[in-house]
Structure formats: structure tokens, C-alpha cells
């Protein structure tokens, strides 16, 4: 059962273009013929019920799936026209370009400062002034600076959950990626922290291409420019958020967003 590709799925000027992506865990297929283009400097939300392959798809974009054993990818993903599954491509370069924020915040057991500059240190930057500046800028971008500026050298483990997640965003922003992947960044946070992070995502939109996986349809509606609805490994519908939530083209999408299913 293959669905026809929606014309909008090949958006003009896509930064990330996905063509006929199939993904297998051993013999089980997790993504089925997914094709669409993700525009630059926009927020694209991936929605769909649990287990539909949203996160798996997201992890294809920075090749985090490389760490999973027995996983096989077919099809083509290009970022700025470059095939990211090309064996000649340096995956470290790719991950420098494509940052990621995880569902469960994962700061390192180091100081707040060291967490933020970790990516820069990894890239070999040693000048104290450069690191200091990057730390301040990134923490300001992540709207965390005012809360932590007096305790940068204290352990990141002393922060609250929402602060830790913003720290993880600051950490991702610090290496100046072009694309930021967010895998349900608010799912474990209270409403206030969620609001802060949503605000942050709206602010980051101008500089970064953001792809966010979310369970929360209101959230997708609030923060995204484009939305993709996935179900059982297939991309059902993709289009501008406004349109997808008001006049969805497909029956399944409508059922899901109106809450009759899912």
C-alpha cells in the first residue's frame, strides 16, 4: 500500500531532501518510502502516533542510527545537495552541521561552562577568550544566561530539568550548526518550562533550520511552519502547518488531528 507523493512534499528550495527512504531493523521495516523536502530557516514538525518512525527518521539526518547495530538504510538523504550516506562523507563534519537535542536531557557531569563549550573543545578550539564568548552567546541564545551566569563553574547536575534541557540546546547551538534536530524536547517538562523552550524555538528559527519531533499537536501548531504527519513508517501528509491543521488533504490526517484516532 503506497500512497501517492503529495506535490508539496517537494517544497521549493529544500535544505534537506529525502528521496525514497527505506529503513530496516534486521528484517522489520521502520520507514517506508519516505520522500519530502525540508525548507531552510523554518521550523518543521514531525507528528504522528508512537512508533510511527518519527524519531527514527530524525536520527537518519545526523546519522545517529550508525550507532545502532543491524540497521540498514536505503534511499537518498541530501543536505545542501550532498548525499549524507556517501561513504566518503565525514560523519563528524555532518554532525557539526546538524546538531541534536534529545528527548531526555543529557548534560555531562561537568560544569555548566564545560558543557556548553564541549563541542568547541572537541573541535580543537583552546583559546579561552573564544570559548568564553561562545559560552556567553550560546547561553544567551538558549535564554539561560541570566539564570546561570554566576555559577558557570558549578556542576550542570544542579540545574532543574527545564534548565538542563535549555543547557543542551545551548550546547548544540555553541558549535554553530545549520540544522538543529529536536526529539520531543519538551515531553518530560512541566508547562512553564515547555513554554520557555517553545519561545526559544521561535527565536532560533531565523538562524537555524529546526526539525522537531513532537507528540503534542498543539505544540506543532504553535511553533512550526511546516508539519509532516507520519503513520506506521509512512509519510501521510506534509505541508504548511496552517494548511495541514485547517484543511488537511487526507482523511487519515484529519482523523488524527481532530483526535478521532491516535
Amino acid at each position, binding site marked *: 500500500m503506497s500512497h501517492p507523493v503529495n506535490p508539496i512534499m517537494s517544497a521549493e528550495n529544500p535544505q534537506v531532501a529525502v528521496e525514497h527512504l527505506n529503513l530496516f531493523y534486521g528484517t522489520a521495516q521502520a520507514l517506508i518510502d519516505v520522500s519530502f523536502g525540508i525548507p531552510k530557516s523554518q521550523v518543521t514538525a514531525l507528528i504522528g502516533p508512537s512508533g510511527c518512525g518519527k524519531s527514527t527518521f530524525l536520527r537518519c539526518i*545526523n546519522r*545517529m542510527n550508525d*550507532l545502532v*547495530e543491524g540497521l540498514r538504510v536505503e534511499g537518498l538523504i541530501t543536505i545542501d545537495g550532498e548525499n549524507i550516506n556517501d561513504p566518503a562523507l565525514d560523519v*563528524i*563534519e555532518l*554532525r*557539526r552541521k546538524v*546538531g*541534536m537535542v*534529545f528527548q*531526555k*536531557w*543529557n*548534560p*555531562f*557531569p561537568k560544569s555548566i561552562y564545560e558543557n556548553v563549550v*564541549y*563541542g568547541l*573543545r*572537541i*573541535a580543537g578550539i583552546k583559546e579561552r577568550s573564544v570559548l568564553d564568548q561562545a559560552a556567553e552567546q550560546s547561553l544567551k541564545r538558549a535564554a539561560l544566561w541570566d539564570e546561570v551566569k554566576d555559577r558557570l563553574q558549578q*556542576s550542570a*547536575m544542579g540545574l532543574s530539568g527545564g534548565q538542563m534541557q535549555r543547557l*543542551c540546546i545551548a*550546547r*548544540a547551538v555553541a*558549535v554553530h550548526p545549520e540544522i538543529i534536530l529536536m526529539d520531543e524536547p519538551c515531553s518530560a517538562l512541566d508547562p512553564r518550562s515547555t513554554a520557555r523552550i517553545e519561545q526559544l524555538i521561535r527565536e532560533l528559527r531565523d538562524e537555524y533550520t529546526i526539525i522537531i519531533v513532537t507528540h503534542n499537536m498543539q505544540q506543532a501548531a504553535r511553533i512550526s511552519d511546516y508539519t509532516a504527519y507520519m503513520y506506521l513508517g509512512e509519510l501521510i501528509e506534509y505541508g504548511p502547518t496552517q494548511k495541514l491543521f485547517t484543511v488537511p488533504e487526507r482523511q487519515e490526517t484529519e482523523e488524527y488531528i481532530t483526535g478521532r484516532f491516535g
Partner: protein
Amino acid sequence: MLTKKFLRQGEPYVWATSLALSMILFIVFLLMYVVLANGILVFWPKEVSQAIMTDGSLVLGEKIRQEKDPATGGQRFQFKVGNRDLYGLDFKWVDAQKVKTLSRPEAAFVLERQEHGNFYGFLQELKTPGLHSPAEMGMTLQAARDIIEPQRAEVSKIEKKIATLNHKVEQSNNRLARLLYKKEGASPAAAAVRAEIEELKTEFDRLVEILNSKRAIVAANVAVMVDANGREKIIALADIVRCYQPNDMSWLEKCSYYMSRIKELLIAEPRESNTEGGLFPAIFGTIMLVFMMSILSFPVGVLAGIYLREYAKEGYLVKTVRIAVNNLAGIPSIVYGIFGLGFFVYGVGGQIDQLFFAEKLPTPTFGTGGILWASMTLGLLTVPVVIVATEEALGSIPPGIREGSQALAATKFQTLTRILLPMASPGILTGFILAMARAAGEVAPLMITGVVKLAPALPLDTIFPYLHLDRKFMHLGFHIYDIGFQSPNVEAAKPMVYVTTLLLILIVIIMTSTAIYLRNRMRERFSVADL
């Protein structure tokens, strides 16, 4: 019905678990009590009792025990009477019914001697021909001994000089042997070495002459002592290590005596086939062995653990290796000892001798037990503990941390060195602690790979090349076995067994608590408990 309710309450399970813990605690405390009770007062000066027997004879010594005589049914006392050179035995049983009176003569002396154990008796006369002190007539035994001390020190200084000289002669002889081995016996180099040896020998003869004359002067200074029954014994002042009158000592004097014994224990060499004197070489050997074992085994164990957890592809082979590593920890330590003897000592050591010390053969250099081989054997014994600890520590790090680091464009190796190893360090250190404690208490494998009853020199000293990995060494664990079970005078050695045990336990506690302190600090720093 009632029992069912009783069982559901959960009380019996609490009792069962607490009973198990109490049993273990009881055994541990009993052991510590026995060691402490017997070990801590060994050096406290004990009073000397004099028993006047019904037949008119006298017994002088420390009354150490009172018990029922299995033969007669009456009470009997055990006296430590010392004076081994006079009586042949240090201990004597005395029938309580034959004792007329027991007294504590204040004038009774105890002399600790270089040889023949303690002397219990009274001072009759001091003969000090070499000393012209104005107070000579009224001089006490202690003062006389103190005056003779510098001269005695000089003698031992000359003795040390001779020992160094001997070492030099030996080295020159080795050089000559090497030249002869290379068939260069007629070369100018060989002639030079021969001349050197001649020169050293002349110096040696000169020193021996000085030594003999000094010794004669020192030996002329004697104390004439008598035992309880008036038997005379002449003791050279230089042979007296300590003299004291325990029945006439204040509490403070006893404390100072106690401290001086502890000091001797920690820094002096053993005397009298290890039953007297200090334990310094054994303490040094034990600590050095544990350190060398750590240096040799920990890096290898940690690297192996990292490979198993981080790089090896999970499969049957890795599972088999893991089971094998776990089982290695269960092999009896004597088996490791035998392996160490066969592989390290005879195999590797033998090859090293063939290649680098061929001129000394058939005298082995590395082809015999030594601290290097003992450390390696112990390292082999403890490496499984380190591997398992490393693996577990790495495995318990949340996967999100690894992903977080790799998503920030860190390579696997960067993630390992910057994030995972620091986070795993508390767990790895726990493995080190277990390994160290095990290594410090191990005796069996050492007995065949390099431990000796009495090592003539430390494996670390001031003679080039300073670190002598081929040397044999002493060890507290072996010391306990040796003096406790192999000593010709077991009864006299018994207090020393307790003291040595106490010391070994203390050393292990100090080493492991240092490691635990470090571990806890790291745990605080790298904890991710809230993630």
C-alpha cells in the same frame, strides 16, 4: 492462619537477613578482637615476678599464664624466664603448690639482647675499661650502654662500608667475567679491572683490621649479670639493645618504652630469625609489591575492560571471553603462583638471563624469584577484578550521555576519554580497591615467586640502578606464616605474629581507605544520579 498472617507481615524475612549480617559481623569483630587484644599490648613492659619455690630455688621472669595442670589437676603458672643461653628454653611451667612466695623485686633487670633473647636477672658489676667517666662508680647500666653506643654505631658504620666494598668487588668481578666470557681476558680493559679489584681488596683488608680493633675495644665493656639463682653471666654492653627495670617504672616511662618499641617495629630490621626487632623490610616489601602490582595490572585491566565493553562486537566470542575472565577470579592463587614460577621466572626470566646476563650463569639473575615476577603474578591474579569493574562501570553509564557526546561531533575515542572514563572512574577505582586488598593479603603465590624469610637488601636502595627488580623481598603475610609456623621457637614468636597481623591489617586499611576516599570524591563529581 496465624502463620500466614505472620509471614505476610514480613518480619521473619527481616530477621533472617539481619541474622546473616550479624553472623558476619560477629566473626569479623571476633577476629579483630583477637588480633587487637593480643597484638596491642605486646610492647607494653610487663612486670617481672620472682617465685621462691619450696625447695629453695628461685624462678624469675614474666608470669604470662595460669591454668589447670592436666597431669596433677592443680594450678600451674607459665613463666617467661628468658636466659636462653643459660637454660636452653625461654619458658618454664611452675607448679603453683610448690611456690612458697611470689614477689616483684624492683631491682630486676630485663635486657633485650642482639642474640639469645631476653635476659632476666640482676646487675652485679659494670666493667668499663675503655671509659674514664668521672661518675664511673655510680654509673647505671643504661648510662653505660649509652656511652658505648657511639662506638657501637661506629663499628656498624664500618661494617656497612665493608658491605658496600664487597658489592663493588662483586660488580668488578662481574665485569671481568663478562670480558672473559667475550674472550677478552688479555685486553687492557681486563687488566684495568684486575688492578681495580686488587685495589679494592687492599682497602678491604685495611677496613677489616680497623673493624677488628674497634670490636675488641667495644667488646671489653661488659656488664656482669646474675640470674635469680646467682648464676653469673657476662654480657657485652654493645649486645644490649634495651635494658629496663619493669617493676620500677613509672607509667610515663612505660609509655616511652612502648613508643620506642613501636618505632623499632616500623623502622628497624628484624633480629633473632625474625622473632625480635623491626619489620621494616617486610612493610616496605608489602607496600612496594602492591604498588608494582597496581602499576603492572591496572592499565592492562582497564584497557581490556574498555575493549570488551566499547569496541568488541557483542557475540558468542565476547560472551565466552567475559565468562572466562569472570572465572579467572576463581582460580586458586597457588595455581597462579605455579604459573608465575613456570612462565615468568623460568620462562621469561630464564630467557633474559640467557640474553643479558649470560656471563653470570649458572647463577641466575632474573631466572629466580624476585619482586618483579611476584608483582606480575599478583597482577595476573587481580586483573580479572579490574576488567570486570571497568566493564560494569562503563556499562552503567546512561546511553543518552554517549549519544549526546557523539551528536556534538565527538568521535568515539573523544567520547571515551572526555566523558565515559571520568564517569566510570569511581567504579573502576572500586575494582582497584578490591584488587589491592586481595593482592595485599595474598601469600601462597608469593612463596614460590620471590618472597624470602630474610632478604639481605631492599629492592629499592641507594646503589645504582636504585630499583632492583630482580631482588627477593620480605612480606608481612609471609612473615606471619614464617614466624608463626616455621620458627624454631614458636612460643617466643607468638606475640610477633599478632603484631605482624595487626600491622598488615592496618596497612591494608590505610591503602584501601585512601582509595575509597578518592573514589568518593570522584563519585560526587561525576554522578548523574538525577538523569
